[in-house]
């Protein structure tokens, strides 16, 4: 923190593939570049703990994971300043970044800011999802990568999306037994996805994905066409109850359940600074409105990677490179030559890795009953607000997420709407018969992460700040 300057040419937030690539390009051009990351080690979630994993067997995670090592090496060699365990809690239109490290807060200003805050898992508000013993698939993978921790006892994975199958495959590689996979991939979207199949055939992901799926299907009991799901237990998960399109209700006794239904952009910081977002009808989430280089409507602030719309790690890296090149072009165009692959080359690569994305989006689009719960199912985990309360409150005339906060406190807890915002938008939109775009989202305000009053009070003050509160 003491090494931190007051001003930088470029500040990047997030050390996943997009942030690493963007920061490296800027630093290689000789721009004074800082990269803030909330985690203690580099890599984001996709390359989580790539420099720090205690797991020695390198066959568990797969080659795609280890391919991130080069990106990390290139970043470390670039000369960018890396600040781990840094919580960015504020960003203004003037590009002042509020950041805390180990309980000390600072304000840092940059000419260009690149947000690479990545993705989070879409909420999965199934009945019982707050019970101990229920976590996300992403959480399970993080415990595996960064600590070598794996579940003991009966384990069930439920939901849909590539990450679910990847975790199952990695668990099998690690020698684990998975009791069942409850697959909620909808039949209807599978039919819709066929439209995009010709493109997917050319995708670099097809062969890899199929191989992985087949391996998992051969070795794990996969129960397909699940259309109802709830988790039961008194003080801990005891069973998962499900129904398929074909059958009656079934019950599986279980010790641990990992849920997943895709990932969505982590938008809080981008929204807090006022970047316009729109509702993506295919990915069913908010994405920032950006130009081709990732620039937002706010001068000097760009968004790169999955935070700009879900497209996967390789696309995130390419979009990070492009955002970095754009910053270099603005601040030091003469240095473009020594940065790395030029824009044309990166765009060609981006186009290639984006092939088949539309297919994946259509294929794995989660079913409405898993996005819009009913009855006593908790929607807002922090303030413990149920689906019925939200739907009933719409009937009282409450027609948007911000009004809903005032009525029910949903979205006002510690997670600041990250785990309920999409659900609340979709529930209100559906109940009112309007589009999510017209329904809107919570108004996100700084601080986007909790900081103590003491941290704020200890911010270094300039002369005018001191004078403004001095008694004469």
């Amino acid at each position, binding site marked *: 923190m003491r090494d931190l300057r007051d001003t930088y040419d470029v500040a990047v937030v997030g050390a996943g593939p997009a942030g690493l690539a963007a920061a490296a390009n800027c630093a290689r051009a000789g721009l004074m570049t800082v990269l803030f990351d909330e985690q203690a080690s580099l890599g984001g979630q996709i390359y989580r703990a790539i420099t720090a994993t205690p797991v020695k067997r390198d066959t568990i995670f797969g080659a795609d994971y280890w391919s991130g090592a080069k990106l990390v090496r290139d970043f470390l060699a670039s000369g960018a300043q890396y600040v781990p365990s840094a919580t960015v809690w504020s960003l203004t239109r003037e590009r002042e970044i509020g950041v805390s490290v180990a309980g000390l807060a600072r304000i840092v200003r940059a000419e260009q800011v690149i947000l690479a805050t990545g993705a989070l898992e879409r909420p999965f508000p199934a009945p019982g999802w707050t019970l101990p*013993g*229920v976590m*996300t698939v992403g959480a399970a993978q993080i415990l595996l990568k960064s*600590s070598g*921790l794996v579940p003991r006892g009966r384990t069930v994975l439920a939901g849909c999306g590539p990450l679910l199958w990847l975790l199952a495959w990695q668990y099998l590689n690690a020698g684990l037994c998975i009791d069942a996979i409850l697959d909620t991939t909808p039949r209807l979207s599978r039919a819709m996805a066929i439209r995009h199949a010709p493109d997917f055939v050319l995708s670099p992901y097809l062969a890899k994905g199929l191989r992985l799926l087949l391996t998992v299907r051969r070795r794990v009991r996969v129960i397909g066409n699940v259309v109802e799901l709830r988790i039961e237990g008194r003080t801990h998960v005891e069973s998962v109850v499900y129904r398929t399109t074909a059958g009656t209700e079934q019950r599986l006794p279980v010790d641990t359940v990992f849920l997943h239904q895709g990932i969505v952009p982590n938008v809080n910081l981008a929204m807090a600074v006022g970047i316009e977002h729109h509702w993506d009808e295919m990915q069913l989430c908010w994405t920032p409105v950006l130009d081709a280089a990732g620039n937002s409507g706010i001068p000097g602030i760009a968004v790169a990677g999955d935070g700009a719309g879900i497209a996967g790690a390789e696309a995130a890296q390419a979009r990070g490179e492009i955002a970095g090149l754009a910053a270099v072009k603005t601040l030091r165009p003469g240095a473009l030559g020594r940065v790395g692959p030029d824009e044309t080359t990166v765009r060609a690569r981006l186009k290639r890795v984006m092939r088949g994305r539309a297919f994946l989006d259509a294929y794995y689009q989660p079913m409405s009953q898993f996005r819009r719960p009913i009855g006593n199912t908790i929607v807002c*985990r922090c303030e413990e607000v149920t689906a019925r309360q939200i739907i009933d409150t719409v009937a009282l005339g409450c027609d948007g997420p911000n009004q809903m906060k005032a009525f029910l406190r949903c979205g006002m*807890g510690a*997670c600041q709407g990250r785990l309920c915002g999409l659900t609340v938008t979709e529930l209100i939109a559906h109940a009112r018969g309007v589009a999510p775009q017209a329904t809107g989202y919570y108004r996100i305000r700084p601080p986007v992460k909790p900081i*103590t009053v003491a941290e704020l009070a200890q911010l270094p003050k300039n002369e005018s700040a001191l004078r403004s509160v001095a008694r004469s």
Partner: protein
Amino acid sequence: MFRRLPDVDDATIEVTIDGRAERVRAGDTVTAALFSVGIESHRTADVSGTPRTPYCMMGVCFECLVVIDGVGNRQGCLVPVSPGMRIETQRGKREVGR
């Protein structure tokens, strides 16, 4: 709930968890360390007081909130353990004064 894979680097350090001395793996986060010693619920919910488990492990769900060295509402999944660290599971909201 969780066990360690057999061939994992496991140099340990000592911390206290709810007043008890425990050895945990150096390099783990507070949340991972609590899981590794068999503690599954790290906080209780603000409103109902029911036990909760960390849900996302990446800093967005806030179900991992614990008291670290006397400071409440810390996200355990973001903080690496350090020697002598005092970790306490949290009951409901952050208490005044810590």
